[in-house]
């Protein structure tokens, strides 16, 4: 019976979040969104602008989060951002290159680049732009470094599930003296990114990139729902602590 109640509680939280997201996206569809400033995203937009101006390439790395694992959410957030960045760079000379450490992500990245190319109608799609570079953490890093080094890349976005091997990627970007923005759902990787990347996304910021680059009402609503749920959690933790304290006294 406990399993049923836990299931119902989980369903309640997801249903509440979904209802809030839909309700807020309808209520606020005509209100211009107001976001907390994330300097890393602002600099990413500037770097993407420079990529288009100087005819170089944007490199996006989606990490190693398998689609059948819980780590897929960060990779899906990276794909969402990739689609918007591919649209923004479609006026440039070269399409972005996308590297992944998981085969299904590589296929989805090719599909995303193809869709961006089709909708812009400006450049032909090159399937080799979305590629698998390695299946183990360090082979993935070793396979990605040549793409950063040799393919006229002037800005890199590393967004997805990385481990500490992300340090090798940020170091490769640093050696080329180009821009890098990195974010991971792995805590150890976040510490490495904070120490080694020019710009870092920490915690839930990695899921907000899509909304900041080009937001729809549902993206904006999802950020508001995150904030609401965060306050609810804080209140629940505080109340729980007070009840535990009262019980101990």
């Amino acid at each position, binding site marked *: 019976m406990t399993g049923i109640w836990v299931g119902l509680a989980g369903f309640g939280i997801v249903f509440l979040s979904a209802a809030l997201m839909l309700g807020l996206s309808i209520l606020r569809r005509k209100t211009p969104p107001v976001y907390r400033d994330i300097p890393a995203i602002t600099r990413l937009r500037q770097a993407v602008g420079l990529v288009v101006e100087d005819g170089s390439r944007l490199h996006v790395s989606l990490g190693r989060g398998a689609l059948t694992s819980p780590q897929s959410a960060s990779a899906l957030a990276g794909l969402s951002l990739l689609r918007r960045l591919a649209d923004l760079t479609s006026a440039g000379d070269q399409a972005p290159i996308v590297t992944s450490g998981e085969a299904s992500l590589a296929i989805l990245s090719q599909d995303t680049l193809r869709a961006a190319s089709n909708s812009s109608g400006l450049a032909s799609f090159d399937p080799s732009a979305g590629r698998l*570079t390695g299946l183990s953490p360090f082979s993935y890093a070793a396979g990605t470094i040549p793409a950063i080094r040799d393919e006229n890349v002037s800005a890199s976005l590393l967004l997805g599930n990385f481990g500490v091997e992300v340090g090798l990627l940020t170091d490769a970007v640093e050696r080329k003296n180009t821009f890098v923005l990195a974010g991971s759902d792995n805590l150890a990787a976040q510490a490495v990114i904070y*120490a080694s990347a020019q710009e870092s996304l920490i915690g839930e910021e990695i899921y907000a990139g899509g909304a900041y680059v080009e937001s729809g009402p549902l993206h904006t609503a999802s950020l508001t729902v995150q904030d609401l749920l965060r306050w609810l959690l804080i209140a629940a933790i505080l109340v729980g602590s007070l009840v535990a304290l009262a019980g101990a006294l």
Partner: protein
Amino acid sequence: MKRPSFFAALITIASTAIAIASGLLVLAGYFFAQEAGGPTSLLAELRLTLLDWALILAGFATFVGIISLIQVHYKKIRLRQVSSIYSLLLILSLAGTFLYGLAKPAQAGKIFTTLQLPVEASLMAVLTVTLTYASIRLLRRRFNLLTVIFLITALLILLGTAPLPFLGNLPGISDWMRPFIAQVMAGAGARGILLGMALGTLTTGLRILFGADRPYGGNK
């Protein structure tokens, strides 16, 4: 901006509908895994079937990904691009490993343990040096209070964890400060970050279920 053809639009609608329906079924299967009396529910069985299909597709995706990897490196060799010698080495190693696996399937893991693992371990060693250098560079690149706290914390954890020659454990740092930083301060911070990421994961999943983000079918 090009308008998609009728056929492309139909495929997009169909893929979106299938993806959303599959997502909802899997989600419902997690929440209602058991019937009231105890046995596994139909939704849970559907969830397992859909996940099995996903695993089969992921296995096939790996095969497609490796073909794509060979194509990328073959193109590099054909166009004699920079570092194409490494591409040649990669393709030869891949072919060699494949043939060895076919000839001696029981010993195929040996290549991984005798070649791949040592190489990855050496990359880990390179990473240690890279991170030390990055930490020093951090002060030059981003000199602020948070950077100073980050570096002091890293130094204290290092001093408290690694036994020092002739000194052993440092009193006060090894027995009190390191556990306090690692278990109380870092533990609390890590839980906060993980809770935030769980909320981010939830809303990202819902955006995909609503079709606002569509990583499949390639459209927004």
